[in-house]
């Protein structure tokens, strides 16, 4: 039943979820591409003119991960606010908060797993295509560059799993703290709302 609710709920908001989903895939693939570049140590050191290039990449990774984290947190919370009403109705009909949180967890897991997988895959393909393009266009040899990088893969998976976990916990906390009245009447001004 819980799984069915999660599915129909996501289907109903499929357009909004599609936007979130494509955004997530983009950020995962950019993250992966960047990491695969920075973990190709040979390639960087062979092709760079400055010594501290490794540091530049690490700072870039840190910045990218901070931005990505807030993106996930914000986008996901926003989608949940769109569904406040629906959750309120569930509560009204006797679904317990615990179960509603399960619905939310289930949805986050689906989104997380699929966006990480698709994101890494597209990151791989993209970095391969780009390196191919560069080699062809500039007629040069890219020494020591491999689009498939195990450390980049691992870091991406671990980082996004963590980010999704934190987001999920954050949202579930928010969901437990919102009174049922606010959920049921979300987007509707009640006449006696205390100021």
């Amino acid at each position: 039943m819980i799984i069915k609710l999660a599915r129909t709920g996501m289907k109903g908001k499929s357009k909004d979820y599609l936007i979130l989903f494509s955004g997530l895939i983009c950020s995962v693939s950019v993250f992966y591409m960047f990491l695969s570049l920075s973990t190709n140590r040979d390639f960087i050191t062979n092709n760079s003119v400055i010594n501290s290039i490794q540091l530049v990449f690490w700072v870039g990774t840190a910045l990218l991960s901070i931005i990505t984290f807030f993106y996930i947190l914000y986008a996901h919370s926003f989608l949940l606010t769109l569904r406040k009403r629906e959750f309120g109705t569930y509560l009204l009909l006797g679904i317990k908060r615990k179960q509603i949180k399960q619905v939310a967890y289930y949805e986050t897991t689906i989104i997380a797993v699929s966006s990480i997988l698709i994101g890494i895959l597209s990151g791989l393909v993209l970095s391969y295509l780009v390196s191919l393009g560069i080699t062809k266009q500039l007629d040069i040899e890219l020494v020591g560059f491999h689009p498939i990088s195990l450390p980049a893969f691992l870091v991406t998976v671990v980082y996004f799993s963590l980010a999704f976990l934190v987001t999920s916990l954050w949202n579930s906390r928010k969901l437990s703290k919102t009174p049922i009245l606010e959920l049921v009447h979300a987007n509707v001004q009640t006449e006696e709302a205390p100021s």
Partner: protein
Amino acid sequence: MKTILTASRLKKVYGSKKSNHYTALQDISFSIREGEFVGIMGPSGSGKTTLLNILSTLDQATSGTISIDGIVLSAMNEDQLSEFRSKRLGFIFQDFNLLENMTVFENISLPLSLHGHPPGVIKERVTKLAATLSIEGVLDKFPSEISGGQKQRTAIARALIHRPALVLGDEPTGALDSKNATTLLETLSTLNEEEQVSIAMVTHDAKSASYCSRLFFIQDGNIIRELKRTQTRERFYDEIVDVVSELGR
């Protein structure tokens, strides 16, 4: 006839400490007997919605007690309340609160399927109730594909499918045109008379109120007047209009 709801000395204060102190309900006591159709009337800010929210178990009173069907609300924790709500209460809102991504059939059957009733029983009960409310033709449609009146009747079906002890309505006709509103009120009053469904409804509209069997007028958090319907609906309507103008709205 047995009493379905007893409210005694309800008081609701919003805000804590000295700042933002606002008393929505002063001291409200009343009871509803089985099979009654009770209306709660009052101007904006009178406390009628607060009262309904408290009766609906969605909000807690600051002091006072409510018992519905012999069960004292304040004695229950959130999970018990949720169980109680889903078994003993039915809700009809102004803006329907239907789940957009489920068909009319799924919407109506949700209270039953959540409690694990067998599909055969669910199908039979939904079909029967849908026929009573004449929405049997739209059971496979989604809420976005049906009219406002049909949406509201779907909401009523969902509120009644599990045979609750009490149905609570928050301006149920508020989002309907007058033709649909009339049909809805007639449906409610037929259900009330023939199936002995107990209904409590909040409204500010004299016409809706005239379908009730008993009316409470609320002002500044107190019940200031009680009106019983003893004659035809048209005469009752005139009586309500008189009281409303007398109260100086």
